[in-house]
Structures are given as C-alpha cells and as structure tokens.
C-alpha cells in the first residue's frame, strides 16, 4: 500500500496547470526530495498533497491516511508573527489532533510540549512571544510543532530557506530522525548537495515531472538542464489540454 498515489494529477490556478500530469507513488517510510527551479510547481504539489488545493484533474490518494495524519510546514511567510502568542502556546497547537476545540492541556501534554521545544534546541524560549524570534529560531519552533503533530506523513516546503548552517544541520537531523521512525517525508528543496547526501529518492519537477527515482540516477546534469529550461509564464491564450496522461503512466 503506497503512502501516496498520484494518478494523472494536474494542479494549478485558474485552469492553468502548475503541476501537469503527474503519475507515481511514494512508498511508506520514503524520504523524498522535490526539486526544481522557482515556479516549477513544488509548493503547488505539496499544497495538493495536504489537501488545501484541489486537483484540476486526476486524483491524489493518501493510502488510508486521514488529512489529519499529515503534518505540513509551509513557507513561514504566511504566519502573522506580530500576534501575541508565546512559543509554548504556538508549539502546543501541534497537539490539535488530540485536544481539538476544547481539550485541556494536561500535565502530560505540557511535558510533551516542553520536550518538543527542547528537541529543537529552544530551551528557555517557552514564554517568548513568537514576534521576538529570529528567522532560524522561528523555523525551529515550526519544526517543534511538526514534531508534536506526530504525523505519519510529513510535508516540508523549502524548510531550510534563509536558515544558517548550524540550524540546517540540527533540523536536518530531525528530518532524518523522522525517517528513521518510519514516517514518510516529502521536502521541497533547493540545495542539490543536501539532496545528494541525505535524500534517497528525488522528484525533479518542472511543471511536469522531469524524472523521479533514486537520487543518484535522477540528479543528472541533463535532467537539471531540462528543468531549468522550463517556461515559467502562463499562456493566457492556451487551449484546453488534450493529453489524458495515461500514455506516460508510471
């Protein structure tokens, strides 16, 4: 049973595809890097997996996973950092699946939150408002929340953007720890060196899938060149797509 099954998936905005005819599957416990130039559709694909963007065509099967079994870490620009909430409370929202609307945060839950904050190296920051954190510290906070979500599928959108090397090393260790626990992890990344060294499987995306498979086979100069040449602009006069996608089944 695959953790994720893409069946001729097309995702996009205003009928314009940002991810075009994607087929394939992710096995449970896989550690997959999604790479491609800006505008290649990486974020769009991840939004589709998480379910906040409905496919224009085709379908994504979660292999028996509920949408609540997914932890999603978007690019942090979408968070209102000026809101008066402490690191402890913010990380605590990761327990939503257990607490829901009214569930209390008991002693055990408090312990869990403190452990998650400690695991990302932020001891002593519990009562700080999130607005006072640096970019790297905020990213650690977001990882702590993902940790608490205890999800079987973890989706990370460019988690190491604008993050210093020390923080990257720490957080990458956490990602590998999740992989070791048998969780499925998908991450959109730009650092080819990191992908080569740490990620066993890679999807090269450029609107359509360029290549998908073991990193060593997929991460070739030829594939990257193809991805780089992708045209970014939507064509406003484009006609409806005729391809049914089945000819290139995975």
């Amino acid at each position, binding site marked *: 049973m695959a953790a994720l099954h893409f069946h001729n998936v097309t995702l996009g905005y205003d009928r314009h595809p940002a991810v075009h005819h994607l087929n394939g599957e992710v096995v449970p416990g896989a550690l997959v890097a999604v790479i491609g130039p800006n505008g290649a559709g990486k974020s769009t694909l991840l939004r589709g997996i998480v*379910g*906040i963007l409905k496919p224009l065509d085709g379908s994504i099967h979660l292999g028996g996973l509920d949408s609540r079994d997914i932890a999603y870490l978007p690019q942090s620009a979408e968070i209102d950092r000026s*809101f008066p909430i402490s690191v402890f409370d913010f990380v605590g*929202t990761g327990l939503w699946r257990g607490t829901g609307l009214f569930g209390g945060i008991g002693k055990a839950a408090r312990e869990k939150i403190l452990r998650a904050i400690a695991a990302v190296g932020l001891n002593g920051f519990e009562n700080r*408002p*999130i607005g006072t954190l640096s970019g790297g510290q905020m990213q650690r906070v977001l990882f702590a*929340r993902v940790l608490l979500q205890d999800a079987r599928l973890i989706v990370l959108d460019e988690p190491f953007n604008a993050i210093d090397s020390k923080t990257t090393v720490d957080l990458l260790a956490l990602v590998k720890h999740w992989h070791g626990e048998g969780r499925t992890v998908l991450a959109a990344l730009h650092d080819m060196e990191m992908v080569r060294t740490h990620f066993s499987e890679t999807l090269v995306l450029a609107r359509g899938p360029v290549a998908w498979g073991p990193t060593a086979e997929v991460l070739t100069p030829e594939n990257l060149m193809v991805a780089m040449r992708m045209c970014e602009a939507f064509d406003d006069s484009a006609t409806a797509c005729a391809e049914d996608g089945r000819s290139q089944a995975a």
Partner: protein
Amino acid sequence: MIHDVLIGPFTEFEFMRRALAAVVALSLAGAPIGVFLMLRRMSLVGDAMAHAILPGAAVGFLLSGLNLFAMTAGGLIAGFAVAILAGVVARSTGLKEDASLATFYLASLALGVTIVSLKGTNIDLLHVLFGNILAMDDQTLLMVAFNATITLVVLAVIYRPLVIESVDPLFLRTVSRAGGPAHLAFLALVVINLVNGFQALGTLLAVGLMILPAGIARFWSRDLTAMICIAVIAAAVSGYAGLALSFQTRVPSGPAIILVATVFYVVSVLFGRVGGVVRQMFPGRHLEA
C-alpha cells in the same frame, strides 16, 4: 466632593445606575471582540459594519416606528447579511475581505438611506445615530446583558480556532475545518456587539468601546489574555468616568465615554510599556544580554 462626582450620581439616580450596568455589560463583551478585531487587522472592518447596521435599523424604524425590537432586529439582519455575504465572497473568491465588505456596506448604506428618505423623519433617527445610554429601559438593558452573555459564551467556544486562525490560518486549515465557522461566528459576534453598542452610543460611536480599549491594551502587554483583561477594564473605566463626566458637564454621554477612552489611549501611546513613545525615546541603557 469626590463622593458627589464619582458616587453620588449613581446612588441618587436610577437612570445612572442603568447606564452604568449597560456600559459594564458592553465592556465585558465588546472589548475582547475589539482585541481580536485589532489583532486580525479588522479595526476598519468593524467600523464599516457599524455603518451597515444603520440602514437595517432604519428599515425597522420605518416599518414599526421607534420600536426597539424592530430596530434591533433590522440592524442584526442587515449586519449579519453584510458580514456573512462579505465573508463568503472573500472565502470563495480571491477578493480580500475588506474589499468585499466595503462593497456590501456601501450597498446596504445606500439602500437604507433610500428607504429612510421615503418617510423622512430624521429627528427620531438622531437616537439611532448617537444612541442614548441614559434612556435605558428594562427591556433594552436586558437585551444588552443578554447579547453580552451570548458573546462571552460563543467567544469561549471559538476561542482556540480563532486564535490559531489569526496566527497561522494555513495550519488551521490543514488540521481542522473549524476555521471557517469560527470566522463566521466571530463576524456574527461583531455584529451583535455593534447592535449592542448602538443602543448606548449610537451607530457612529458603537465601535468605539470595542476598538479604543483594544488599542489601549496593546500598549501595555504582549500577552493575549492580559490584553483582553486590560481592554475590558479600560472600557469599563472609560464608561464609568464618561458617565460621571457627562452628568457633571451635560456633555452627551456617548461622546463623553469615547472622549475619556481617547484620553486613556493618548496616555497609553505616550507612556505605554510596550512600544510607547516615551519608552522608545528613553529606552534606558541597553542590557547585558
């Protein structure tokens, strides 16, 4: 002397006691709503909605004269219609909520003014425009208290999703479907409290006891719970002091209350612990770490 100014009017006159009870109820419910309006950058949305309520109340007035229930029901219906339509349009299209709200409130304002002009009795409408907290009868007072109670109960129910949706709406969407209903419920609470406010302060100042205390609270704390408590206290004290001021000087009560709150606001801007002007000009020597 102090007794004459601060306590005398309230022990002596029943209408002052009623006004005080009303203003405390308004503070308890309206100030927390105001804090969320401010934090969600919806302060002007609240103002726009207050205008949208006016024609609804006017329609109620047109249909059944200066009847409190008719006017309140009209205001509630108009306010809910505008709030919900604007929320739905913002959610189902790319249009930002403030833009769609502006459209709806302009439309309902135009409609309301047109309807009022059919009958053309502007004098009674002064009551709607500026309220009259000193003329609270039992019915009105009970309704204000009822609305305040509903507000606090609903706010307690939607508090958690409302907070998370304010900080990180995308996260809430991935873990729960409570975000949409919580948002709509919040807009409904805004409307209820605006209707509440217009009984006392009139349509034009109704939003004042919500937004000004929230602005005051922002200068004294970085913690949400503390901000809500400070806002409630600031609103209640403004209401009390405003009533006393109004009694002594014969200034209309609504404007007096809002003016007192404004004074507190200015003091907070100047001397507030969090980002106040004086604090920023003389921050003291920098710390060791």
